[in-house]
């Protein structure tokens, strides 16, 4: 693997996200059904089916354009908490790589730092509130660490995926403090958070998409 992600790879990443969400649709809805209103998989699948179409025409453009196309669609069409949170995530990722056809590990760390800040600002959740932030925050911390330690992109992405996964898993033992699930209090213990899980699939796609 090269030490940067090309715009072509960025496009593969988006395709991988779309594929994964499609595959995991039922699983995500089932998770949301345990604690929320059970529509998370449907919402995400509908959204990323459309994202695939929207991104195709800009497949050859720079990374910023590709991610901004995703973010604009997610932000302005989907609605729900997910539209706002993932819309913000992709738009913040995009803003940090405007015009770039190659994205380095340093770029990636900056991009995800911005994304995490955006999610925190709009969602007002804390780590430990049993939301997608529990996936994002450790993954971003890992990326920052890898960048500071000048790890290889491959190593960094593997660590990123692992941190995201552990973050997702951490939600199982947490009490939900945000969103619909928060009304259930202690009853939320023992269930994975749906948003944290879909977020893991998205972050994992950054690692897997690059490999393609």
């Amino acid at each position, binding site marked *: 693997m090269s030490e940067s992600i090309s715009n072509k790879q960025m496009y593969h990443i988006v395709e991988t996200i779309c594929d994964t969400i499609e595959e995991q649709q039922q699983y995500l809805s089932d998770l949301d059904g345990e604690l929320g209103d059970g529509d998370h998989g449907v919402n995400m699948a509908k959204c990323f089916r459309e994202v695939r179409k929207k991104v195709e025409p800009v497949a050859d453009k720079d990374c910023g354009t590709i991610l901004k196309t995703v973010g604009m669609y997610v932000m*302005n069409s*989907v609605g729900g908490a997910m539209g706002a949170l993932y819309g913000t995530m992709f738009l913040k990722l995009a803003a940090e790589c405007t015009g770039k056809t190659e994205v380095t590990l340093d770029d990636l760390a900056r991009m995800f730092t911005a994304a995490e800040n955006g999610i925190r600002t*709009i969602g007002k959740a804390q780590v430990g509130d049993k939301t997608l932030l529990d996936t994002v925050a450790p993954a971003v911390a890992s990326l920052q660490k890898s960048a500071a330690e000048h790890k290889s992109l491959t190593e960094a992405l593997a660590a990123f995926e692992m941190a995201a996964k552990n973050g997702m898993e951490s939600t199982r033992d947490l009490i939900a403090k945000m969103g619909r699930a928060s009304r259930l209090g202690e009853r939320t213990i023992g269930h994975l958070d749906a948003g944290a899980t879909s977020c893991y699939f998205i972050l994992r796609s950054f690692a897997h998409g690059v490999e393609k």
Partner: protein
Amino acid sequence: MKKFINDPFNLVDEMLDGFLAVHKKKIRKLEDVRSIARTDAPVAGKVGIVSGGGSGHKPAFIGFCGEGMLDAVAVGEIFTSPPPLACYEAVKAANGGKGVLILLGNYAGDVMNFQMSADLSAADGIEVEQVILTDDVASAPKGQENRRRGVSGAFLCWKVAGAKAAAGGSLAECKEVVERVNANTRTIGVALSPCTVPAKGSPTFVLADDEMEYGVGHHGEPGTERIKMMSLDDTVQKMMNEILVDLPFTKGDNVAVVINGLGSTPQIELYAAFRKVKSILDTEKINIENAYVGEFFTGLEMAGFSITLSKLDPEIKSLLDAPASTPCYTC
């Protein structure tokens, strides 16, 4: 799932097409986004009142867009808040130069998306205020009122806000009066059977033949208790006990009552429920000044109802009685 639908993902658009055709004298669609506004919006020199949220709450929200109530409404997918752009365009459409008040339920998606629209609007120089409605006593304990869901009490808030704006109220005044209504309003709901979100296809919850979901939300969110079926009078008594102490409502208070069907509970049962509410309030020497029975804020075809009590003062009472002309409410 048995429903009269085509592709579930087109349902909201198809509904809106129909709705716009039927009510074209009162409302119009905004361009490029899925939001509506009263035909004459923005009304120059009047504070704009905006709301919105997921679809599936017939007649809320769009049914209350019109003179004397909401100036513009952002329309989401079923049980999903509308995106920021739809909210933002609704705010712009409602802006008559005197500022815009956004009223929203306390749902994560609504809060985030309206906040973004408020930020965008503020960047445009539009003065925007928000009030987050929180009338559902079942959704968080007393002392944590700001965590509660906004449910059918919203109907009263929209009515009062719209009337205050129509009467020339400033943005601050409109906001204050809605905050007053919200602070004095309490709701609790109960369900006998769930609803099914078309895109999902399976019921939001499952109840045994002898069970009720007590404290249910109007998206079918789990309530505080799953209890055995009881008579109507016992059910209403339990609900009233909880509402009355929460504010509390006390002897001599003047109140508005809303009995809101959640979707498939016949009006005959709703009026019978009102009768029991009235007899309880009569005993408590609490005086019903305004009463509303019917469907205001439903959860698709859920069987159930909610009781809302709202303590009135003379200003709020007169704002409730002020004229309104919307697709689904006229007075």
